[in-house]
């Protein structure tokens, strides 16, 4: 399905609203003001997946995943590079944010914490999307893993990985840059449903 700049603009706005909501919750949990920036949203079809790698690199990420089914089926990931994940963990647990511990591996406690943060981000964005879809989806509980992008995509059922929506967000907590990305991997039909629905709202 061909999408035009207006479609992308609408999807970007939905992500924006979701991230804003998540940031509000994180701000309360950290007791710090969170500065938001405009997320950068891009969409890839199946034969453009290799471009995702050139866009965001081959690093391993801390990833929180959530599976969804319904008129819109697939998997959403909230992913963080190690450094951002450590800043976030320190910020929400109230630990002093230290910049010399980024090499340390994530403990099971860290993973639990990240799972909740990722859950907040995913719920913000998915909530915003289901709001326009006006259809009830069923979801799995979030889970945590560490992997690179190709592995994350491979993890999704074949028929549900025909399109990828990548949203790159930057937040600043106490002047520290937190890079978080949302990957929504879905079937072509699901993606068409979303675009159709967005067009109905804005044009029809």
């Amino acid at each position: 399905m061909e999408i035009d700049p207006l479609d992308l603009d609408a999807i970007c706005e939905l992500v924006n609203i979701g991230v804003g909501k998540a940031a509000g919750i994180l701000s309360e949990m950290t007791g710090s003001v969170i500065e938001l920036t405009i997320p950068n949203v891009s969409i890839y079809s199946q034969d453009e997946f290799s471009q995702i790698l050139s866009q965001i690199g081959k690093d391993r990420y801390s990833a929180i995943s959530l599976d969804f089914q319904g008129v819109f089926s697939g998997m959403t990931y909230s992913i963080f590079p190690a450094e951002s994940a450590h800043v976030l963990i320190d910020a929400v647990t109230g630990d002093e944010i230290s910049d010399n511990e980024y090499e340390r591996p994530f403990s099971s406690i860290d993973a639990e914490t990240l799972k909740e943060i990722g859950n907040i981000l995913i719920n913000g964005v998915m909530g915003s999307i289901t709001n326009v879809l006006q259809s009830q989806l069923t979801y799995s509980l979030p889970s945590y893993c560490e992997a690179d992008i190709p592995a994350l995509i491979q993890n999704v059922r074949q028929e549900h990985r025909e399109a990828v929506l990548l949203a790159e967000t930057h937040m600043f907590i106490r002047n520290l840059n937190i890079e978080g990305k949302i990957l929504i991997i879905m079937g072509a039909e699901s993606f068409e449903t979303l675009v159709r629905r967005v067009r109905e709202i804005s044009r029809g």
Partner: protein
Amino acid sequence: MSQQKNLSVITEFSDALPVGICVIDRKRKILIWNRTLAEWSGHLSEVMVGENLMELYPDLNTPSYRSRIDQVMDGGPPAVFSSQLHRSFIPCTKADGTSRVQQTSVIRYAGGNPDHPCAMIIIEDVTDLDHEIRSVRQMKDQALLEVQERKKAEEALENLNAKLNLLSSVTRHDILNKIMVIDGFLGFAEDLTSDATQAEYLRHVRAAAMVIQNILLFNRQYEQLGIEDAGWFSIDTLIETLDTEERLPIYSACKGVSIYCDPMLEKVFYNLYDNALRHAMGATRIDLACQPSSSGLLIAWEDDGSGIPEDDKEEIFKRGFGKNTGMGLFLVREILAITGIAITETGEEGKGARFEISVPEGAYRIANPA
């Protein structure tokens, strides 16, 4: 009515589960409060059902709880509340007075009536797990602290060692200078004296001065032990660098063998060879062989000279033994010992000396023949 019927099925089901379950409607009215949660909280289901959850637990009214539960009711994904960030979703005190650590998930529950969505709050007791994780973390922190302290102590020792080395090198340098002076003036005195007894005394003095000089020269070498990191050294390469004399050639059968040793390993072979030149009467050759054994690698250094008397086999490795500096074989044993290598003398008097060097497993390697 259908929702009511559904609720009673869910109630019955949830009462059988070992997790706390509470179902609330959009207005936060409690619809289900299962048996486990009643036991944990000390509030009976009969009392709780119909009450407003937020009025009973006002902490749940803060936006980070309220808006996340709203998101779930609005059709969003489940919300998880980790035990690390929210230690108790519903405060529950255990019999011993400590509080129950909880991990909570909130999922949407349509309950047969999509117009009136509910939220199901599922609470797991992770107190034991939490304690375990905490004690492991404490142990890790303690271990890290100890490592840091040890590191500091090591650094202090290194500093002290460096100071001592500096002091000893300066002192040695000064004494060696003075010995040169003594040696020079003794020469003059010997030339001047015509008294035989006096000349004899002067020779004793010079001999004593030379012993002092040797002790200091050995001391300088010994100080280098263990200063440089150990590394891999090829035996053949070390043998090739020895300045061998025509009368005593070395035949090595240790091609491709390397051992892990202090860089002063070259002094080992130098001393063994020097020792043979000085003491192996009638020797015509030295044979060097390498043989893997049950405990590692056995390197044999053998000459065909006069050999070493039974009584001296251990004595030769002691400091001060022998006619020359008395330091050679002592130093050899010390150098090898740094990386766990042992040396003994096993030859037969009259047939030749044989030094056996035992290299432990992992401290030697043999290159594949090309």
